[in-house]
């Protein structure tokens, strides 16, 4: 997918109009929904950057003295470690002060802090160490770690807001970085997924299949059923994390026959979500390119999304598999099944039993 993604990026750079959102939240919406108010991430970052450089210089200039200050004996091994830590502090300080990706550098600092905490904890176990001084050092580093995390988070949210605002004000001149920020992080949803597939059928046919929303559960694995309420509104039921059942009403927000369909959940949804799908004729009469953009916030919000990612397939993978099933249904009339698609994760390549077919069919 990396190839695909970079191609999308370069298209955005060459011609921002070409990929401007046809539907879904506009860039102005993005800027409006951004939490406003003073956050001060940049000022804090500046202070941390200079502090980091100062500390690093001290460690490089007097590694033994620094080692003794924090309570380790200052032998040649300690000196080497201290030198390395000092150099890292200088580099990360310079990085944080630089204008390029300060949030990234700040997260790198958090990683460095974790390393220091580990080193200090290991030193506690040494019999030559001064435990009192070490404890002091540990407390200090823990404090700095907290500060680094806070600052990184602020920088990140400011960066997104700035990117969205920049994109909203001057779509023609927005930088590549700002464009990517906007592409990657539509406003309020915890999970955003964009996937694409080419299907060897005319786009009228695929649009018509999708427009009848009751068909969606045929290829969207988490959906149990979609019932239409009227021409624009529908009721969706899905399987949530841990086998829970979730439901919401959705409305179609834009409908351009054979071209585009956009929808979003109505207020009060179990899963706040929105999405659009675009149908483009593939070059050379080779079927239809189907592009899907989905945003949602799982029941437990961002934390839920992270947990789901840790214990299951990534949302990107899920949507890709769903699109593959759409392709199978449109091209062959059935969802491809092998013996191994029955049962749990690792069903051997031998026929499923009746019970397995009933459980997973």
């Amino acid at each position, binding site marked *: 997918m990396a190839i695909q993604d970079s191609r999308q990026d370069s298209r955005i750079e060459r011609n921002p109009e070409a990929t401007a959102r046809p539907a879904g939240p506009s860039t102005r919406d993005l800027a409006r929904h951004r939490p406003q108010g003073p956050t001060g991430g940049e000022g804090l970052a500046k202070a941390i950057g200079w502090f980091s450089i100062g500390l690093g210089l001290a460690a490089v200039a007097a590694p033994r003295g620094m080692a003794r200050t924090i309570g380790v004996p200052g032998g040649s091994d300690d000196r080497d470690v201290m030198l390395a830590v000092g150099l890292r502090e200088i580099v990360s300080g310079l990085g944080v002060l630089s204008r390029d990706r300060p949030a990234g550098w700040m997260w790198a600092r958090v990683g460095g802090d974790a390393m220091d905490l580990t080193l200090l904890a290991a030193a506690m176990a040494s019999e030559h160490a001064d435990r009192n001084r070490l404890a002091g050092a540990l407390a200090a580093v823990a404090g700095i770690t907290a500060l680094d995390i806070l600052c990184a988070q602020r920088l990140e949210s400011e960066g997104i807001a700035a990117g969205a605002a920049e994109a909203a004000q001057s779509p023609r001149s927005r930088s590549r970085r700002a464009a990517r920020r906007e592409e990657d992080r539509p406003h309020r949803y915890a999970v955003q997924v964009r996937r694409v597939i080419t299907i060897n059928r005319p786009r009228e046919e695929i649009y018509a299949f999708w427009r009848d929303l009751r068909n969606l559960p045929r290829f969207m694995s988490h959906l149990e059923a979609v019932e239409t309420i009227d021409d624009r509104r529908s009721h969706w039921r899905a399987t949530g994390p841990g086998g829970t059942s979730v439901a919401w009403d959705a409305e179609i927000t834009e409908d351009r026959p054979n071209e585009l369909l956009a929808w979003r959940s109505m207020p009060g949804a179990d899963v706040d979500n929105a999405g659009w799908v675009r149908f483009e004729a593939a070059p050379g009469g*080779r079927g239809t390119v189907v592009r899907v953009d989905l945003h949602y916030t799982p029941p437990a919000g961002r934390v839920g999304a992270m947990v789901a990612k840790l214990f299951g397939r990534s949302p990107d993978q899920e949507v890709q598999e769903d699109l593959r099933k759409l392709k199978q249904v449109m091209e062959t009339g059935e969802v*491809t099944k*092998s*013996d*191994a698609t029955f049962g749990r994760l690792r069903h*051997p*390549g*031998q*026929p499923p039993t*009746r019970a397995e077919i009933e459980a997973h069919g």
Partner: protein
Amino acid sequence: MRANCWMGKNDVRVVDVPDPKILNPHDAIVRITSTAICGSDLHLYNGFIPTMEKGDILGHEFMGEVVEVGREVRKLKVGDRVVVPFPIACGKCLSCESHLFSVCENSNPNAWMAEKLWGYSPAGIFGYSHMLGGYAGGQAEYARVPYADVGPIKVPDGMSDEQALFLSDIFPTGYMGADNCNIKPGDTIAVWGCGPVGQFAIRSAFMLGAERVIAIDRFAYRLRMAEEAGAETLDYEEVDVHDALKEMTGGRGPDGCIDAVGMEAHGLGLAGAYDRAKQALSLETDRTFALRQAIMNCRNGGTVSVIGVYGGFIDKFPMGSVVNRSLTIKAGQAHVQHYMPILMERIQKGEIDPSFCVTHTMRLEDAPKGYDIFLNKQDECMKVVLKT
């Protein structure tokens, strides 16, 4: 039913498993009458193909009688005698419409696994690992055949199982190896590996108009079988292959070189030891001795046709030779559905009798023994056919 299952490296067993059922409207169930062990099954047996699971039914060369069809099956009916292609193909995607059946876009439900290793996914294959679909194989009493109207073709009355069976894989595979050499009158084709696929490649090269075929192996009985087809032979343990080919081709090199060996090439000398060591340490997944030789020996502007199976990554690949000498490399799993009707016609016309390669016929129950003697080339083993 009984089925031959992969239970781990160098361990296959015939065990009881559930009977296959129709799972999709285009499925058919085939009662298998004959099934074969393929050289590529030995790569699974030796544990060189990733994503195998304990209990996987092996086998992708099989034929038999249709005993049940799904509600959307139109061309086949219960009672038809059919031979089944090893790649599973939907017939509807762009690849299938282009007759590139072995890279069908819909038949691998585990496409994401193959994409991780190869970038994009090829077709699913019967009994050939989970990254190629996790389909139960055909070394069994019955098999479920998806897209039954696309793959299997009917076997005419009077044609024996042994004559039709190899349309499932090794005949089309060998034929595609020769076809990819774009043979012109007067061409000399060299074939590395005189196993069953190599034997079909040799015969196919002649069918497609090659003037001479040079067969390279180290087993006398295999070279003998190549000679019977009219090939000149080289034992690579006896002669320097490069010198010999140069001598035989007037100093030009063969016009087409077919690698019918694949990832477990038996290498000689330092290079052979190097490949073995790197493969054992997982530094390269595939041993490449035959492919390197095929490249280095091909004439300037000639074609290297790869039909031996490779799984992952190779080392010391002579790219300089390919580029600077204008070589063409063509490769692929055979697009069996494309070649089947063409080759069925050649069999019916009596141009070839594929049963020549069968050396051992056993009961399905004896499959483990079949693997053992095929792997170790005991008893001049060329091809093992299992009967249910």
